[in-house]
């Protein structure tokens, strides 16, 4: 404020409780750290001690993911008397719709290019060596995956990476990194998917996906 920077978070008291305005022009990580500072800083701490209070969080034009919501709730959990009533985005549902949705993109991710995505992605085309495809959810490649793929990039350990040709330079799921063997057996790259077991990346043939995603399995009504 002193140096003229608008605070990322504005707090107002209303008769229904506290209103938190989170500036939608700032990166979400900045907002989080500012909020952490406001809630956990010892000098400010006294303000928060008091009777139970409802909290309404206004996100402006921003929509957040489930993971971002969890991060916010975790911060507020440090103050037992602050109870989050609800989140609000301007004219939109506050959550980015991505759960169980899958979106399609086509093209080629070439060396030096990074394709980042929120949610589950079906990519029709190739990811070439030196190229990166990254998503917070699952990655399905209808084409050859020769570059780097990172699924569940915000920590979703359930995310999988599937490809018609799975011949990556590196695979990452959540925070686990793995590199394929140095020599490929060409017969072992077609129609594969990678998933996490015991904090390790395993690769299986796509026909076995129903074991990992049994909830998604299609069953004939015999």
């Amino acid at each position: 404020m002193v140096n003229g920077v608008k605070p990322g978070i504005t707090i107002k008291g209303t008769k229904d409780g506290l209103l938190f305005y989170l500036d939608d022009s700032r990166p979400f990580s900045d907002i989080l750290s500012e909020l952490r500072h406001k809630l956990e800083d010892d000098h400010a701490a006294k303000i928060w001690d008091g009777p139970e209070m409802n909290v309404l969080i206004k996100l402006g034009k921003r929509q957040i993911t489930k993971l971002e919501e969890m991060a916010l709730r975790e911060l507020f959990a440090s103050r037992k008397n602050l109870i989050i009533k609800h989140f609000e985005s301007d004219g939109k549902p506050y959550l980015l719709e991505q759960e169980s949705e899958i979106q399609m993109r086509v093209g080629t991710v070439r060396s030096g290019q990074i394709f980042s995505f929120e949610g589950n992605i079906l990519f029709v085309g190739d990811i070439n060596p030196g190229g990166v495809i990254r998503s917070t959810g699952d990655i399905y490649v209808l084409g050859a995956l020769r570059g780097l793929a990172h699924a569940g990039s915000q920590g979703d350990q359930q995310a999988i990476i599937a490809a018609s040709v799975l011949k990556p330079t590196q695979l990452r799921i959540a925070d686990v990194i793995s590199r394929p063997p140095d020599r490929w057996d060409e017969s072992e790259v077609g129609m594969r998917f990678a998933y996490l077991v015991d904090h390790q990346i395993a690769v299986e043939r796509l026909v076995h996906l129903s074991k990992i995603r049994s909830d998604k399995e299609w069953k004939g009504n015999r």
Partner: protein
Amino acid sequence: MSFSEGWDTMGESIVVTSGKGGVGKSTTSVNIGTALALCGKRVCLVDTDIGLRNLDVLMGLENRIIYDIIDVIEERCDLKKALIKDKRCNDLYLLAAAQTKDKSSITSNQLRRIIAELKDEFDYVVIDSPAGIELGFQIAAAGADQAIVVTTPENAAVRDADRVIGLLEKEKLPTPKLIINRIKSHLTKNGGMMDVDEVVAVLAIHLLGIVPDDEQVIRAGNLGEPIAFDNSPAGKAYRNIAKRIQGEMVPLLVLDREVSMFRRMKKWFGFA
């Protein structure tokens, strides 16, 4: 000249680039230019590798340079005066790069203006780009309507070509076309080198031609006589590429034959 006339004679500018150095960009530029000229087209080669010029050497025109591209930009001479006519082809010209300056002495807009002026005069303007993806490459690409990416069938070269294709797609150029240079058929056969299909599968762009590895190319370069005049396999490959640039359908060279086989084939086609 009326407006419509000027429009009709508008040529096409093609940038030849590769990312990686030493894959044969300049050799390809010279030979494509020569082969196009042999087809009766009016062609101008533009060397944009300022500070490291060598198109003039490959064409054997080094001793004829009086003005270069920087002289044109700094208005020491007009464009027509700076063009060097080829020894052998009447309709082939070279605009040489300066050897004493560096890449920053020219801007995209300056090159664009020169290329636009050349396109009024010539059917094809072939721009030889410097290696790398920095300023020099960006400037060369800025002046082009089309792009040709040269690679050799090696992993490192294909990676760099892939990167360059990505960068060219970001410019408003149409998807570049591919030339695979220096194919050693005996190496691809025993798996020691990527084969043509593998390279095309990775880069996923249209293949304009393949050029076999040929000692004659090096010899020709040293003599300053482009191989495209020659009846060697590489020379034929470049002439085929020139035909494809003009929209003709020409089948790819068959590479996995013995050299003697090539001789025999040439006989069939009436070359030898």
